[in-house]
Each structure stands twice: as C-alpha cells, then as structure tokens.
C-alpha cells in the first residue's frame, strides 16, 4: 500500500467513525420524540378526604427536609383546605404539589438552568447546580418549592441522596420511581384511589380518559402555565 492510499483509507475510516455516532444520535432522537411519554396526574377531589397519608408517605420516600419549626419545614406535597367565602360552606381538601407546568416560571427565572423540564415533561432541579438564590420560589405561583434552611441529619430513604443545605427542593413526580416503571409514592399510597398518574400522550391511559371527560380543572389556569396536574371536582 502506498503512503497516499494509506492516508486516504485512514481518512475515510476517521470520517466514518466521526459520522456514525452522530448519525446514531440523530436516529435515537427521532425514535424518542416519536413515542415520548408526557407524564401528568389527575386527582379526584370527590374521593379525597384529606387524610394526608400521601403527604406523609412523600416526606419519608423523598428525604424531605423536616424540622419542627413550621416556618422552615419543607413540603413537596401538602393538603390545602379550601372553602368559599359563603357562610357555612363546606371545606374541600386539595392535595397540592409541583404542577409540572409546560411553561414553568421557575425554569424561566433560574439563572443557572438548575431547574429544567425533562423531555417527558417532569420539572426537575439539579441540586448540584442550584445556587440557592430562591428566585424560583418567588416566581412559582403554586408555592411548590422549599428552601433547605439548615443541615438535615439522616435520611429516611437510603436509595435517594440526602437533602442539601442551601438549595431548593420540590416534588419531582418521584422521578426515580417513574424511571423504574413505578408510579409516584403519593399515588401508590392513596387508599381512596383519588390520584392517578400516567402518560398524557397515550389516549388510552387512565389520566387521558379522565382529562378527556372535560370535567377537570387546574389550579390557576388563568396564568396559562400548562400545568400537568389536573383536578376532578375543583
């Protein structure tokens, strides 16, 4: 083999090597967008009696920073009690969490892109990137975010990392469970079957059918955030 041929062959090989991973990436991207999941939740408030077991289970499963001082105690999921200003009106229990908006203000304001929307619509915080400026807490209309105000000893779930003093935390739809084919711990815990979780892009999923019923509402729809947590009977 002549020197020139050798170089030519080498060049072709190198080019092929450079192109093939790139092309495989393109291919992978196409496949993924074709049948990507988009996760959402529907909460049937007519079944919810506000027992709060979902919130307690969430606290244990997600290593939520828990302190006796209510002002700095963190909540990824909380039960709000809402009633109209009409006299003698009934109180309604409403579980509230991160609504995983399509247009999340928290992600828009984050100066370091520590908050981001995953391809499947789950809004996450990279707590190794978060600088703890708390702008997202100011921007979130659902008060879904909490700041870890001090070092929190111990962890209730050893499979997840501990909380970190100085960064913001929030509901992540139990993303580690979802990635292992499970459902969020609050949905699993609810004995009344009030919560359902699933793929909004799948027309036959339970959540899609409930939303298609047309009787669902979201909290503060007036803000046009595209929240993915829907409520039946709100």
């Amino acid at each position, binding site marked *: 083999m002549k020197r020139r041929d050798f170089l030519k062959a080498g060049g072709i090989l190198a080019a092929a090597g450079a192109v093939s991973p790139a092309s495989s990436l393109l291919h992978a991207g196409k496949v993924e967008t074709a049948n990507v999941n988009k996760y959402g939740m529907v909460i049937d408030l007519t079944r919810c009696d506000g027992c709060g077991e979902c919130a307690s289970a969430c606290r244990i499963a997600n290593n939520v920073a828990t302190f006796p001082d209510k002002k700095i105690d963190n909540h990824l999921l909380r039960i709000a009690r*809402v*009633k109209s200003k009409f006299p003698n009106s009934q109180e309604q229990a409403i579980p509230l969490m991160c609504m995983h908006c399509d247009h999340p203000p928290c992600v828009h304001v984050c100066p370091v892109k520590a908050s981001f929307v995953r391809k499947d619509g789950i809004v996450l915080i990279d707590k190794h990137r978060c600088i703890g400026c708390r702008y997202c807490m100011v921007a979130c209309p659902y008060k879904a975010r909490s700041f870890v105000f001090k070092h929190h000893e111990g962890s209730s779930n050893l499979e997840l990392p501990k909380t970190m003093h100085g960064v913001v935390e929030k509901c992540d739809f139990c993303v580690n469970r979802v990635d292992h084919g499970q459902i969020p711990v609050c949905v699993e815990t609810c004995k009344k079957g009030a919560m359902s979780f699933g793929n909004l892009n799948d027309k036959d999923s339970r959540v899609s059918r409930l939303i298609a019923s047309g009787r669902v509402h979201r909290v503060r729809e007036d803000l046009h955030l595209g929240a993915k947590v829907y409520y039946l009977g709100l």
Partner: protein
Amino acid sequence: MKIYFTTIDGKSKGMYALLSVLAVIAAAGMYATYAMFSQGHYITGMNNQIPWGLPIVVAIYCIGLSAGSLVLSALSAVFGQKEFKPFARIAVFVAALLLVGSLLSIILDWGRPDRVMLPFLYLNPRSIFSWNGFLYSSYIFICIVYLWAMFTGRDAWIKPMGIIAVIWAVGVHSGTGAIFGFINARELYHSPLASPTFVTAALSSGTALMILILVSTFKATGRFLDNRLIIGLAKLLGPFILVVLYFVIVEYVVRLYTPSTYEPTSFVLFGGNIYTYIFWVGLILIGSIIPCIILFNPLTKNSVPWIMFASLLVVIGVFCERLIFVLPGQVFPLNLFPDMEMTSDFMDGVITWYQVSLPEIAQGLGILSIVAILYIIGLKLFALLPSEARHLEHEL
C-alpha cells in the same frame, strides 16, 4: 479651567478611628454571614413563605445608589453640565464600589455562594437574573474603563464611555426592576412600571447620596467645595423625587382599582401594619413630601445644611421604597384559589410576618462598611478628589 486631582493624606487620627470602627462592623457582618452557613439560614428572618429578605433589599438599594451616582458623573461628560466636572471621577468610583457592595449582598444571600461562577457558565437567556449577572459585572468593567480614560487624560474616550455608562446604568436598573416586574405570580410584583420606577428612584437616591458623600468628604479633608455646585445638584434632586412619587401613585392607584389586586394593595396602604407606616411615613412623608418642601422652598433651597437634611431623608425614603417593593409581595400570601379561603400546614392563606434578624442587619451593615472602607482606601491610593471644587464662574 484646569482641575487638579490629588490623593488624600490619610494619616489623621480621625480617619484611623473611622477605619477601625468600619472594620469592626465589617468583621461582625462577615461573622454573621459565616453563622448563616455554619448554623443554617433559619437564623435569618427568611422562611419558606418569605424567601427574600433584607439582603435583597440592601442589594437593590446599593444598585440604585450606584446608577444614580454614575449619572452624576455623566452630567459633565455627556449632558454638557461642565460645572460638575470636578465630581466626575469620584462619582464613577462610588458607582463601581456600590455595585461591588450589591454583588456581595446578592452572592452572600445565596444558599451556595461557592457556586458563584455557575451563572456565567450556564446562561439562561429567559432569566432576568442571568442577564443581570452579565449587566452588573460588565457595568463594573465599564466604570473601570471610564475611570482609566479620565485618569490617563484620554479626552476622546470620555464622552463615548460616559454615553455607554449611562445606557448601561439604565439597563442595569431596568433589569433590577424587571426581577420583580416579570413575576406574574405575585400581585404586588407584577408590573410594567417596576423598571421605570427603579430607574427614577435610582436617580433620586443616587443624587442624594452623592450630595451627602461630597459635602462630608470635602469637609473631612478640608477642601473647598463651592456651595453653588451642591445647590445645582439639589435642583436636580427635587424633580427626581416628584417623578418617583408620580410612578408610585400611578402604580398603587391601578392596583387599588383592580379587584384582583385590591386586597394585597389595601393590606399595604391601609392595613395598619408596619408596611403601612413604611409606605406613608417612610416613603411618602419622609422620602418625598418633606424633601420636596425643603428643595422647592425659596427659604431653604439654597442652604447647604437644609439640602443635606433633605438628601438624608431621600436616602432613607428610597430605602423604604425598596422595602415596600420586596417584602409585602411575599408577606401577603399567594392567591392559589382566587376569592376562596385557604389554609394548610405550609402557611398558605395566612399573613406570615418577616421579622428581620440580627445576622441580616449585621451582614447588611458589614457590606456597607466594606464599601466605605474601599472608598477611603481609594481616596488614599488614587487621585479621585479635586483639590478644590469651584463653580465655573470663578474662572471667568
């Protein structure tokens, strides 16, 4: 006219006493900051309902003062007010220092200040904070280039640099106002008027602070300062105050008129709480009405002690304006279910008061002391101060 700039001697006992007092306050502030990180941020007055407290107020306050003093420097370079040329150097220097102070306050307020480089590594073009990181740091850089042009006598550079600096100051201020104005979730933040209000409040507080700094510095160093220059600055201050007042009135009237924002607005204006007093006494009476009476009254408007007093009131009043801007929007609970009553374990639907804590106050005063120390050191190292500041007419 030739202006001679000289360094200060800086060997008097009074100055060493002042420096040591400032150093003690700065050390206390740094210790308070250390305590926040070692013990936890629960020792501050902030909590999950009120994520932004005094440090953010101090930060945006310093930014305001900074932009205002920079515009003062540009008066001679850009707007042709040649009589203010003696103040050009010192005003730019103060502008840069105050911005350093505000950056310190912001960064030390973060939960993780060790990640200070990340905003520069991961820009988010939709985040006004990301823009501000760029605006603030480049603003300091522009101030330094501007100073360098003045020091090295590059007269051709001074006017363009002054124009750039003024544009940047407006950008920095609009950006700071937009931090709050962009937040749709909170009725007391969301407003297109936030940015213009910040720009004008910056002009009034910055001019007032420069009057205080100039008169006290010239007096302390025994240099001659022509009263007519201070009176000239005071003539600017009066209209600035009125513009701020006008913006505030427009903002609050619109909010009172709108049913969806009536409740939080009346909480501030007529709630009978601390914010009501800060608004009516701090911002309206002390910060606007009394200074205007002093600055427009023929008996007092040409008296430097009265102008000093009015400037002090304006500096206090704009601080109250910043408090009103940042705090009530968080103290008043978020409205998740409009026109309904809401309670929860997470302070929903109830007013959570912000109780300012000693560490936060110490941190704020410490940062201001650091700025003051740098100011004195700057005067000693660089020829920032004119040997005397005379009105142009003396030359004629």
